[in-house]
């Protein structure tokens, strides 16, 4: 029983982290109907910036957040302005190709600069644990869980209660009508896209002590994970992303515990396929 609770809690927290990674992607998808295949690679870019900062100045990744976030804001603006905006009206497959090109550029540049060896960046709490009776929780996971919860609540509040949030919802429901109602769709898209990337400037450093070892070529895998969560939860649904993340995280944790370590990574994909088979609109999505 204790082991069961332990695995469940681990999975729950991992799930929140996955949801955090997916939330930026979900947000961008809801607003632009674009899928950014370089999402995971941009997260790894933020993580490797932390590695560089640690090597140069011994900076703790949690402090690096104050540097990576503004850098990702600038990067997000540049990518949107020069690469995404010209393709907003083009066929959706063009954006897939373009972002696949970005995947190659980012992941291989990271390999070139940092080699494809596994790297670690220590933080002041990487090894620390919290004991709740027989249950052991890793502190970095608790921090990541906290950040994920705060970010989700923050999004929820912005979407519900601000003018900006209302225009975001209007565009995600019907962008043409929203435009006719006087919403500056281009501007909202730019802000949302940039926010999605900026969030990675926070997520990346927070995830470092959680996953402990990082490899530059894991980016696409992360992107796909975020996609899976998006599909499982229902595209463009923030609460759905959270639930999708939790399901995937818990299923994976149980897979690692009860199946082999090499087969467990396939579980999220299996869930993904099952959801597509039996509920293609996602758990929280409305039937088409």
């Amino acid at each position, binding site marked *: 029983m204790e082991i069961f609770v332990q695995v469940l809690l681990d999975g729950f927290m991992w799930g929140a982290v996955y949801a955090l990674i997916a939330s930026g992607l979900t947000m961008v998808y809801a607003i632009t109907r674009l899928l950014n295949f370089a999402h995971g690679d941009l997260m790894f870019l933020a993580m490797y910036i932390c590695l560089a900062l640690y090597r140069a100045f011994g900076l703790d990744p949690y402090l690096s957040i104050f540097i990576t976030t503004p850098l990702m804001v600038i990067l997000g603006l540049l990518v949107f302005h020069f690469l995404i905006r010209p393709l907003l009206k083009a066929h959706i*497959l063009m954006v897939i*190709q373009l972002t696949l*090109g970005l995947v*190659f550029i980012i992941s291989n540049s990271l390999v070139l600069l940092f080699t494809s060896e596994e790297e670690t960046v220590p933080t002041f709490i990487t090894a620390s644990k919290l004991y709740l009776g027989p249950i052991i929780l890793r502190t970095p996971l608790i921090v990541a869980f906290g950040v994920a919860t705060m970010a989700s609540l923050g999004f929820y509040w912005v979407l519900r209660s601000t003018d900006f949030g209302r225009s975001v919802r209007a565009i995600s429901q019907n962008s043409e009508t929203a435009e006719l109602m006087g919403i500056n769709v281009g501007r909202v898209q730019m802000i949302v896209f940039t926010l999605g990337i900026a969030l990675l400037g926070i997520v990346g450093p927070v995830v470092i002590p959680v996953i402990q070892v990082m490899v530059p070529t894991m980016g696409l895998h992360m992107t796909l994970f975020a996609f899976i969560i998006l599909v499982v939860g229902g595209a463009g649904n923030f609460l759905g992303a959270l639930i999708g993340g939790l399901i995937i995280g818990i299923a994976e944790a149980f897979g690692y515990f009860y199946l082999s370590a090499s087969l467990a990574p*396939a579980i999220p994909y299996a869930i993904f396929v099952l959801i597509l088979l039996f509920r293609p609109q996602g758990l929280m999505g409305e039937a088409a």
Partner: protein
Amino acid sequence: MIPQALKGRNGILLAGILLFFILIPHFVGTYWILILILTLFFIYMCSAWNLIGGIGGQFCFAHTLFLAAGAYTSTTLYRDFGISPWIGMLLGAGIAVLLGLFLSWLNFRYKLPHLSFALVTLGFVYIGMFVISSFEHLGSHDGLSILIMETDPLNYAFLSKIPYYYIILGMTLGVIMLTAIILRSKLGLYLRALRDNEKAAEASGINLLSVMYKGMALSAFLTALAGTYYAQMLGFIDPETVAGPHMIIEMILFTAIGGFGTLWGPVIGPLLLVPIGQAFLNVIGTDYAGIDLILYGVIVVAVILFMPHGIVGWFEELWEKKEKGG
């Protein structure tokens, strides 16, 4: 049945190019033969992908699965039962076709939009990679070696690379001719209908599922043949390279640069990029592995922004302008 495009001056040009490709291995060393093999291999793969991905507009990532089906079936059958890879190749292709049909059925049964189909197939790529990696019998992470001790044509084994060069040359010519025929056939028309306007195609009474089945089966079959070729030619396969997502992304990007859905797009893309990438590696040095992939990424971004229909599409537009202007 020679297509119109191959008659007259075009025909002479193509015959010249063909003669060049037939004679060249006798004038260059092994290094260049390997680069030529790699180039032709990608032309073959891109053309096979283009049948369903370009002409049919179904953004499919699963082709690495088909490749792995070919490579792993022929390799394990030869190792365990001494079955010739030529036969194993066909069995592998059969498995790939079944996989392809299943994915097409999934796509249609649930009316997946383009994006979801891309994601589902990419998901299957990772599932396939994890499954192969977790079976000791398939060599798990470390992969399988194919030892070739002597030349044995009946078992797809050659000590020299030249026979492999001619095999891939033949395969490539075959797939290009097949594409030319398909583009002119009813199936080609239906595939383009599938890409351009599914609803209108359906309304005019085309059975889209059967069109998708045909296109996908053909594409999967051809890709699996390349899997066995890859295993025999290189003598080594591992899940990361054969079944991983890298190869399919390269295939998609090369085709995008050349031009989706055209006859020559998937030919031009690899023909330009593979040698450029290799030359780049040669100049910069192999210490910087991956720099060729960065270059591909930069080129594809530039091509998409400035020539949205690929190099072939760009030339066609230039040609049309010239015709109108003159």
